[in-house]
């Protein structure tokens, strides 16, 4: 097949679909290659869809996209073995359309997004793994697939092939992922009647709740647990840095960690009776700004998870993926319109567009956070435990006077972290998030 395309997009996840859709809408001849049986069959996410990034691509997506529940309440829990202290933010403003975010089921959502991509005029080929990039000197000129008789050519290849970023790694565009820069997350989907979910989470039809958890559920590893409400199912999962899984002296498996989370006395009643229908695992690139690789070169650009575009602090990724895919496509469209060759110089406009967007601005803002968290496990163990114990001390009525209780709480913080440690931790967090 010696046919030549304006662009080839590898992958049909959020960044690949955003890129392909944008290119096809502009009338370019674009081929999208997906290794799964159908778009979505290889893709894993929590999953929260942030409306804004998709609105900029498909403004009326709400008309027919498969959306589960719009989120009206965000809960943040700090847990020890038997209790939790939580903050809940619920606002009726989140209950007014247009809704800000939704839970979605990725296999269904990606299929829908892909149908829009094909309507826009792109050619999609599934069940096809791209084995390597085809180079002419230093320029990417196409891809080699494991079927279709081999090689396909294009003026530019957009790599949207996911966190493992196999193609860019093989081509030498970047090195192997570092265990400290990726989180391994596992999750299950548990089905139960809509009404049960609504009663348990104090929500109405179509309303949803998100719970993020930190503390004993990760056994001292840097990571979080999560519980999301879908329409008639719950998604529950836990993710920790791969370097921490590796170094954990208890050698806890990811699935044992997930089981422990499900058995926590504050979680178990929420998920009770749910019928488990799938178990997934996925890596999340959490290295942030300092782990972002080279993003473009002669004839290629890289987007989404393959480029490490995840804002771990805010649990955002798919919106960065869609935005980067769109910006990569717009770079191609502008260059083609100007009759420019798609070399590194031209495609550097992609990096400039990313720098000017929330994608790189947010990653830059939190650039110190991965290092701080990696070297400060106290944020994930000591503090949640201190806080839950403090709450228990304060709220247990047992004849001890409140001043003594207060002294006991202050004492527990000081003995755990010392005054200098407390001040140092506060400074570290401030510096990493300012």
């Amino acid at each position, binding site marked *: 097949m010696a046919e030549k395309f304006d662009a080839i997009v590898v992958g049909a996840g959020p960044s690949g679909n955003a890129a392909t859709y944008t290119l096809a809408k502009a009338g370019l001849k674009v081929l999208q290659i997906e*290794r*799964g*049986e159908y778009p*979505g*069959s*290889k*893709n*894993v*996410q929590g*999953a929260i869809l942030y409306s804004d990034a998709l609105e900029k691509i498909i403004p009326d997506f709400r008309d027919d996209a498969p959306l589960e529940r719009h989120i009206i309440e965000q809960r943040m829990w700090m847990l020890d073995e038997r209790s939790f202290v939580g903050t809940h933010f619920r606002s009726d403003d989140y209950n007014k359309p247009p809704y800000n975010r939704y839970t979605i*089921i*990725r*296999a*269904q959502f*990606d299929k829908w997004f892909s149908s829009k991509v094909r309507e826009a005029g792109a050619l999609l080929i*599934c*069940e*096809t*793994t791209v084995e390597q990039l085809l180079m002419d000197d230093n320029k990417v000129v196409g891809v080699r*697939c*494991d*079927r279709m008789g081999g090689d396909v050519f294009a003026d530019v290849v957009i790599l949207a092939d996911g*966190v*493992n970023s*196999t193609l860019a790694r093989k081509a030498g565009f970047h090195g*192997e*992922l*570092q*265990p400290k820069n*990726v989180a*391994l997350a*596992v999750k*299950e*989907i548990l089905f139960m009647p809509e009404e049960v979910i609504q009663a348990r989470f104090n929500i109405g039809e179509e309303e949803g709740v998100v719970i993020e958890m930190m503390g004993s559920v990760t056994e001292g590893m840097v990571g979080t647990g999560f519980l999301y409400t879908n329409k008639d*199912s719950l998604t529950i999962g836990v993710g920790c840095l*791969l370097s921490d*899984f*590796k170094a954990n002296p*208890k*050698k*806890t*498996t*990811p*699935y*044992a960690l997930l*089981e*422990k989370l499900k058995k926590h006395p504050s979680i178990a009643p929420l998920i009770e009776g749910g019928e*488990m*229908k*799938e*178990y*997934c*695992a*996925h*890596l999340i690139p959490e290295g942030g700004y300092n782990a972002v690789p080279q993003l473009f070169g002669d004839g290629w650009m890289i987007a989404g998870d393959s480029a490490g575009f995840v804002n771990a602090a805010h649990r955002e990724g798919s919106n960065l993926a869609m935005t980067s895919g769109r910006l990569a496509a717009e770079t191609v469209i502008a260059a083609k319109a100007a009759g420019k060759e798609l070399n590194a110089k031209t495609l550097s406009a992609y990096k400039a567009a990313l720098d000017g967007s929330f994608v790189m601005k947010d990653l830059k803002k939190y650039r110190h956070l991965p290092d701080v968290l990696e070297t400060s496990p106290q944020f994930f163990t000591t503090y949640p435990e201190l806080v839950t114990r403090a709450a228990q001390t304060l709220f247990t009525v047992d004849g001890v006077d409140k001043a003594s209780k207060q002294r006991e709480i202050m004492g527990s913080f000081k003995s755990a972290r010392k005054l200098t440690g407390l001040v140092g931790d506060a400074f570290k967090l401030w510096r990493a998030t300012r």
Partner: protein
Amino acid sequence: MSTVVNVEEKLFQNRYKVDHGRPHISIKKPEICANDCQSQQCTYVCPAACYKAEGNGSVTLITDGCLECGSCRVICTEHTNVAWEYPRGGHGILFKFG
């Protein structure tokens, strides 16, 4: 960790199209796992328990339940002894929900 968790029960819920006789991941040099790798992290980090520590000190790999996350390759930092590719198009895990 005291709780024994049967991951096979979890994987049983998943849909796979196994590429029989063509595993997409392999251990490059099995003797390195047996002789040089003290930690054998793949045997407890792999979320699908594809890697098993055998009684004789070796590590065996069966990729049928693989979730295609990439962890085994990324954590094998000392010996880089995992040859990791995606399955052939259409094969491997097929997420129903993802």
